[in-house]
């Protein structure tokens, strides 16, 4: 029993016979602090403030770790030395070059993956026949970890760009297809039947109703699975590459440059946040009707 409850109880039992000043009626219901309310809403200022506190606490953890483990095998570089290593990497001309090489691989592979995802996903989400046909094989293949394909792709496709792009595709395409199929399934049936009764044919309905309705969802799916694309890229580059961000990671490892490795991790994080913000902006720009 909570202390408030015990304090209130005699008050509730015999309010009228209690002598002294007229009793203030006890408030009904439990008051909750807005920060701790389930599914509550926060004012904008509080949200911004909390987000800032979140970033600061991450930095603080890093700073703390770097002072606790400042030397030895388990060494954490300070944010400042990481920054210095990053600048060094940049001025040596490597970082820009590697960033470009890695980004190009992700961009090509992910574009292919999304193109397949949109076509197959909308097909599966729109036609029960394609769903019945495609879902079982996709479901089977999907459980093969895409990273397990790495040696196979290296064997088949050599060690140039092709296996890296192929890994990015293989690691994301099934998620893109299945998630975009879900997005296409969410098109209200009333909307489709309305289009039909207005004289639209199947192709017109797909192009003018299913696709535009699915578009913001497709951008969201792209946003979520982009992280998977970078994951596959790193796997590919760690094994066989002579340029790229993960290649620099292995090089830094050889020279025991923990600060350089941290700088590259930060670059990954920055790319992630930047592409996330871009896709969010794109979604709101191209589908203002679906702004959340």
């Amino acid at each position, binding site marked *: 029993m909570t202390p408030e409850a015990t304090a209130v109880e005699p008050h509730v039992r015999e309010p009228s016979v209690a002598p002294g000043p007229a009793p203030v009626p006890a408030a009904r219901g439990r008051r909750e602090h807005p920060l701790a309310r389930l599914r509550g809403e926060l004012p904008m200022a509080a949200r911004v403030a909390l987000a800032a506190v979140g970033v600061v606490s991450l930095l603080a953890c890093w700073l703390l770790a770097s002072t606790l483990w400042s030397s030895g095998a388990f060494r954490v570089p300070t944010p400042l030395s990481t920054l210095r290593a990053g600048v060094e990497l940049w001025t040596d001309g490597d970082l820009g070059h590697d960033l470009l090489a890695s980004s190009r691989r992700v961009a090509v592979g992910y574009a292919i993956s999304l193109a397949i995802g949109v076509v197959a996903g909308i097909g599966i989400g729109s036609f029960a026949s394609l769903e019945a046909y495609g879902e079982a094989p996709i479901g089977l293949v999907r459980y093969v970890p895409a990273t397990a394909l790495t040696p196979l792709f290296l064997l088949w496709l050599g060690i140039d760009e092709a296996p890296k792009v192929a890994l990015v595709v293989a690691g994301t395409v099934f998620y893109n297809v299945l998630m975009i199929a879900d997005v296409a399934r969410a098109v209200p049936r*009333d909307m489709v039947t309305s289009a039909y*009764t207005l004289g639209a044919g199947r192709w017109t309905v797909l192009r003018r109703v299913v696709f*535009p309705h699915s578009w913001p969802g497709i951008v969201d799916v792209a946003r979520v699975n982009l992280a998977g694309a970078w994951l596959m890229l790193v796997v590919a580059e760690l094994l066989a590459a002579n340029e790229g961000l993960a290649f620099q990671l292995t090089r830094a490892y050889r020279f025991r440059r923990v600060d350089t490795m941290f700088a590259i991790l930060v670059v990954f994080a920055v790319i992630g946040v930047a592409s996330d913000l871009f896709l969010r902006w794109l979604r709101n720009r191209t589908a203002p009707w679906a702004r959340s």
Partner: protein
Amino acid sequence: MGPLVNAATIAEPKLVVDGLVKEYTSRRAPAVRALDGIDLSVGDGEIVSIVGASGCGKSTLLRIVAGLDHATTGRVEIEGCPIAGPGPDRGMVSQGYSLFPWRTVRANVAFGLECAKVPSRARAERVDELLGIVGLGGFADRLPGELSGGMRQRVAIARALAPEPDILLLDEPFGALDAQTRRAMQDFLLQVWARTRATILLVTHDIDEAIYLGRRVYVLSSRPGRVAARIDVPFGSNRSWQVTRDPRFLDLRDEIRDLLLANG
């Protein structure tokens, strides 16, 4: 029943439904008969209502006329032609959520005209005319999300009217609206009808709405759906809410309610 039987409209109906049966078969259970021997007709320029309890199959009937579902047996003809599938000759408006939220009001109304490859100038003229009829000229460039529920249904009606359908099929079009808006929309539909003389088949569970809007009311029983009565409504085409206080209106309402209770 009603004293007015309009022989002229029965002579050349737009829509004829004759002996329509809809059965749902499944392997485990015996076939379920949703609609059983439905006969009805809608004459040119008439508003005809179908009233029934929820689950009586009235929406299925409308979907069959729209070509979105198929009858097990029976005849459904529009201007003497059988129905193979949906088409712009049978416009449909359902309860809601059918407007394209990414298209402006103008572009929503234009959709059917785009499908019919109407040239853009003629399209724009027709859209403006329709938006004038439904009183939404000032909202042409808004998105559906910015409109109230009643306004959205007005857009849906304008959009369905745009390809000049032979018949307008309304499936509980005001079912998601609050009572006041609903009333206003019923008067609005009568106004639109007065200006366009569209042929309308309306499905509703609201007895007042069925009588108020319909020249004729088909009362559908439930499980299986059968035409329990065909009632001619004794009011002219120029109606206002005064008629809902008319004793004949009240009698009709009681009659239909009793029919629905007896056949529910």
